């Protein structure tokens, strides 16, 4: 029997049942590896349901530091009989099946080319505990203890995690410690050397943090000065609003009065949520909503209003699998067109694409500056993979000398001084007009905000020329935006190449790994990671500097390529789309394979042409 042997480089996958309490045990397993200084990446795969359906938890252990999804499974822990067959089938040859051997299973339930490790988990838990709930929960800790022993995870690290987890509920610490020990002892006694996978202490985690993107973006909103949040629950964005609430409670309560420097409302739906954000933005507060595809669809009319009436507003789109209700608990990057061109009529919006929770924090905070500077809706395009999974990333940082950029707001003093005010007047030549906030001055600067066309002084007008004047300014404002949005990040390949690759968002981690593998195969690609739309000029320059550019996206219709072609006036023939859209996070393996295949074809074509 071949045995996969690997140290700090493998994938463990847990299969559980929704609501069975496995999540925190699995999470503890993962975190223990991190505490040993070994980078990990975890991914939850869960159903749109509350209790009783299958869930999976994938832990990638990567001493090399790859935190994208790799693909494949080295060690499977199938705790859910419903999905047993599929789970067993998913193990790489030579890999390991760790299972609850309390009840005998027929040989047909196993495979010949994998290594089977049985531990009588239920039996052990049941013989030690009486209450059904205890038995269920502690069984989870038994397998964690057993796995830790198998893989060489330090027992003390796990014990310490248990203590941290149950701090305050101290009576739970003992049984959990015991469960870990029961599992560990069994392995140490009966299964020595059964598994070729090992975790070994390293120093590769450094000061990095392990956090999910929704939590990070919520914290970014706190740092970015958001005071108003209006939202409606929808997976996978709910946890961002809830995290904002939690952070605010810690960070934004006035220490003296105990009053809140924030207002969060759970709206009755997404139309109401975005309406409140626009009302607050109009009134000079920094406001946001968090939602997902169906919410974005419902918000279209209001987004058009915010575009045309030029109201600062921030929308977090935690993308999930579309169209329609689609795959609510799966990940995609498929709301790009509907956000970039949101609303009927001619519109274009500003989108930001964080690559991980660290950047989600940064771009989230930045979004509020951009919204006020550009007087426009700003979309922060996350996805379920970043938003709801914990990622290992650089710690958050903040520059205390920076003040919020509140954009062009005329004050009482400005008005008093007699500064000319025209709400839609392009005074500075950057197409961004000045605004006044309600209540500023008793006799000057009041105007009427509307979604209908109006002249530079905000007066209603149905004149063609007046309308065109305004619409062209709005286009120019988008040009201005290119200067303010975060610029793309480019990397040159080690060797000069005529090939490039463009990617963005949660693809980043898998991409880094894929590039490394490709390079080792002799495939060199210059890279550009997009961070915003509209595209700063260097994006178009990057494309023009290469014969062929791969565009890697997690959607069916190559939506980012559409934006590139359309806004960059680029020949589509220049682009080769690499599309992954089955709802699972894209893997390094998928990218590597897709690109190498295309490169082989291109190479063949070139050779043929040369003949």
């Amino acid at each position, binding site marked *: 029997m071949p045995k996969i042997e690997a140290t700090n480089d493998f994938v463990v996958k847990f299969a559980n049942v929704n609501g069975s309490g496995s999540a925190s045990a699995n999470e503890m397993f993962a975190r223990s590896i991190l505490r040993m200084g070994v980078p990990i990446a975890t991914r939850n795969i869960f159903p749109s349901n509350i209790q009783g359906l299958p869930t999976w938890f994938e832990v990638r252990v990567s001493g090399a530091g790859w935190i994208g999804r790799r693909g494949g499974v080295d060690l499977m822990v199938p705790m859910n009989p419903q999905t047993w067959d599929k789970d067993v089938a998913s193990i790489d040859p030579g890999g390991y099946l760790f299972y609850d051997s309390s009840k005998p299973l027929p040989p047909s339930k196993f495979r010949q080319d994998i290594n089977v490790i049985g531990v009588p988990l239920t039996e052990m838990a049941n013989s030690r505990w009486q209450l059904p709930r205890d038995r269920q929960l502690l069984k989870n800790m038994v397998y964690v203890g057993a796995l830790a022993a198998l893989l060489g995870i330090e027992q003390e690290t796990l014990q310490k995690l248990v203590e941290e987890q149950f701090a305050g509920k101290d009576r739970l610490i003992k049984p959990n410690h015991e469960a870990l020990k029961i599992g560990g002892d069994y392995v140490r006694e009966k299964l020595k050397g059964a598994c070729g996978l090992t975790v070994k202490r390293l120093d590769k985690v450094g000061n990095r943090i392990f956090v999910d993107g929704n939590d990070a973006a919520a914290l970014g909103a*706190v740092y970015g000065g958001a005071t108003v949040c209006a939202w409606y629950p929808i997976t996978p964005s709910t946890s961002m609003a809830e995290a904002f609430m939690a952070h605010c409670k810690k960070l934004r309560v006035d220490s003296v009065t105990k009053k809140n420097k924030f207002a969060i409302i759970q709206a009755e739906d997404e139309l109401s949520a*975005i*309406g409140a954000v626009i009302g607050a933005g109009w009134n000079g*507060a920094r406001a946001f909503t968090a939602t997902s595809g169906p919410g974005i669809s419902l918000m279209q*009319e*209001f987004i058009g209003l915010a575009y045309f009436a030029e109201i600062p507003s921030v929308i977090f789109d935690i993308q999930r699998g579309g169209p329609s209700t689609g795959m609510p608990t799966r990940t995609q990057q498929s709301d790009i067109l509907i956000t970039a061109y949101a609303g009927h009529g001619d519109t274009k919006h500003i989108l930001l694409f964080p690559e991980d929770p660290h950047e989600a924090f940064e771009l989230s905070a930045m979004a509020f500056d951009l919204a006020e500077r550009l007087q426009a809706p700003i979309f922060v395009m996350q996805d379920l993979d970043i938003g709801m999974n914990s990622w290992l990333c650089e710690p958050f940082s903040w520059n205390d000398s920076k003040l919020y950029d509140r954009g062009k707001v005329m004050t009482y003093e400005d008005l008093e001084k007699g500064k000319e005010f025209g709400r839609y007047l392009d005074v500075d030549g950057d197409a961004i007009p000045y605004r006044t906030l*309600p209540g500023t001055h*008793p006799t000057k600067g*009041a105007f009427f905000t509307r979604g209908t066309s109006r002249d530079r002084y905000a007066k209603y007008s149905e004149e063609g020329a007046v309308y065109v004047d305004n619409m062209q300014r709005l286009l120019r404002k988008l040009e201005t935006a290119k200067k303010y949005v975060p610029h793309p990040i480019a990397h040159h390949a080690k060797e000069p190449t005529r090939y490039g690759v463009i990617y963005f968002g949660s693809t980043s981690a898998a991409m880094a790994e894929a590039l490394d593998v490709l390079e080792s195969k002799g495939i060199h690609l210059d890279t550009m990671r997009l961070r915003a739309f509209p595209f700063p000029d260097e994006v178009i320059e990057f494309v023009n500097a290469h014969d062929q550019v791969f565009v890697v996206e997690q959607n069916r219709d190559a939506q980012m390529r559409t934006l590139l072609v359309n806004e960059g006036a680029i020949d589509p023939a220049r682009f080769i789309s690499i599309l992954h859209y089955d709802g699972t996070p894209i893997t390094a393996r998928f990218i590597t394979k897709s690109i190498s295949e295309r490169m082989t074809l291109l190479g063949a074509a070139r050779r043929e042409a040369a003949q």
Partner: protein
Amino acid sequence: MTYLAKPKFRHPSLVPNKLGFTHRDYEGSISTLCAGCGHDSISTALIQACYELDIEPHRVAKLSGIGCSSKTPDYFLGQSHGFNSVHGRMPSVLTGANLANRDLIYLGVSGDGDSASIGLGQFVHCIRRAINMVYITENNGVYGLTKGQFSATADRGSKSKTSVNNDAPIDLIGMALLAGATFVARSFSGDKHQLVPIIKAAISHKGSAFIDVISPCVQFNNGAGSTKSYDFVREHNAAVNRLDFIEERDEITAEYEPGTVQEVEQHDGSILRLHKLHLDYDPSDRVHAMNYLQQHHEKGEVVTGLLYLDPEPRDTHAALNTVDVPLNSLGTRELCPGSKALEGINDDYR
């Protein structure tokens, strides 16, 4: 009505109020509504109320949806910021505005189409959330701006030139009472004497105040088959009370028959003096009010007056426990926890 330049001498006596503002300072652009439209009378009443209350015009924020009614904020309080948002969604925009700055007076102006048809959900939800505002529907039973289709407040059997309404009407007053509004009134655009004090009382009410104003559409719904026509409302108007709005306690001097007058002191010290026209009507009892209204509506009466008042209104800001200063006035220093705090937070994620 007209497109002509604003006439110069409309108010022979421009008596300034306490703040030194004259009536003119509360006006807006010239109306572009049809001559005789009820909505214009409501604008006039709003101007009058703000003038009499000595409100600084720029401390008012006017918000509306889309419709003839929703255009009207352009026609009063020209020194106030206005927001003509999208159809049926003013309530959410107003909610957000209110959260951002608790210090302004919020005036939501809407139509029956805007609030009872497309906007019904937002209407009810904004009220149940206890937003401190005055919410006025200029209720004509039709969509004026799109040329006269029935709206959801048209009574069953209402007739227009081309059709009859078969659907049950939406009772906005009933909805507002059900949803927990703390100030509910109905009035008639043709009755300025009733309307102005109601608006004043609503503005001084620190909670969700809703006023449904029947406001005939002379263009499309002023005919014999309509229950929203001038004639119908005049004939069926059943006022339960008359309101005097009194700013300060010491202004009260006259003596009244016991039982005919009810006085309520509001939080800001203002007094609402209700002259009972129906002695059995008690505007402090929500359930009673609903029942009374339903019974009288079934008889074809248009019950007007201050229908319900909770002198201890709720306000979202209290529920949310927000700071006393407007959120929009907080700057980087007040809002940003800074890099120090971030270090601790980073640790939590390790």
